[in-house]
């Protein structure tokens, strides 16, 4: 049940970010100054933490989505759904351990 709840919550969150992200990227068509001003706000530490949560949501939604596909199409999918849930959690932890230090180092560095 929790995988289903998290899939919905992360899906809605990613959807609303996507709406904003298309609008901010569209500013490249306005002017370099306009785009740089808005994308600059993505580089402050608070937004950096937000991006970490966003990536965490995307990675969970991606792996749990694969799990849903396997439950639907693999003949043993339903039997192994619980094991696959913990596999999703495990892969999520591994990817986040790879991503978070790199991203936070970039966010909190003084470069740029």
């Amino acid at each position, binding site marked *: 049940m929790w995988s289903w709840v998290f899939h*919905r919550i992360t*899906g*809605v969150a*990613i*959807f609303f970010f*996507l*709406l904003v992200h*298309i*609008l901010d*990227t*569209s500013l*490249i*068509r306005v*002017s*370099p*100054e306009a*785009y*740089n001003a808005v*994308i600059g706000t*993505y*580089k402050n530490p608070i937004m*950096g933490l937000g*991006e970490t949560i966003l*990536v965490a949501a*995307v*990675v969970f939604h*991606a792996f749990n*989505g*694969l799990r*849903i*596909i396997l439950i*639907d*199409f693999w003949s043993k999918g339903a039997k192994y759904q619980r094991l696959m849930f913990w596999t999703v959690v495990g892969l999520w932890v591994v990817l986040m351990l790879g*991503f978070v230090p*790199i*991203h936070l180092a*970039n*966010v909190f*560095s003084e*470069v*740029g």
Partner: protein
Amino acid sequence: MTTIQAPRTPSRSTRKRGINWDKYGWIYMRASGVLLIVLILGHLFVNLILGEGIKQIDFAFVGGKYSAPFWQIWDLLMLWLALIHGTNGMRTIINDYIHNRMTGRVLKGAMFIAAAILIVLGTLVIFTFDPCPAGAPANLVADFCSAK
């Protein structure tokens, strides 16, 4: 006496004829989902992990990417697949939680219009974008602009 309906009885009668859109929506979520995993994880890897990550992203960075058809197509696929995937997901959620038919219709209509506008906007931006706009300061655009 209250009659209890059989399990899985739909709240309104199901469509008997015509195209089964819900079925194609169901298939679309899975097919686009698999493609989006590759597209979005690749997008995140190139933009947030390689180089200086989030700090490298500015007009010149995007200009450099969009001067290659490879990234134009990549982002175009992401735009269409993700927006339709997301909008169809929101449609499912509205169907589940909004019991008033009129409210549901208004919400789904708003969602559809927002998605349509953003797909058109995003597609136009990808294909009409100029990485070296006339009069733009040289320090804000990609290095290759000054070579022209």
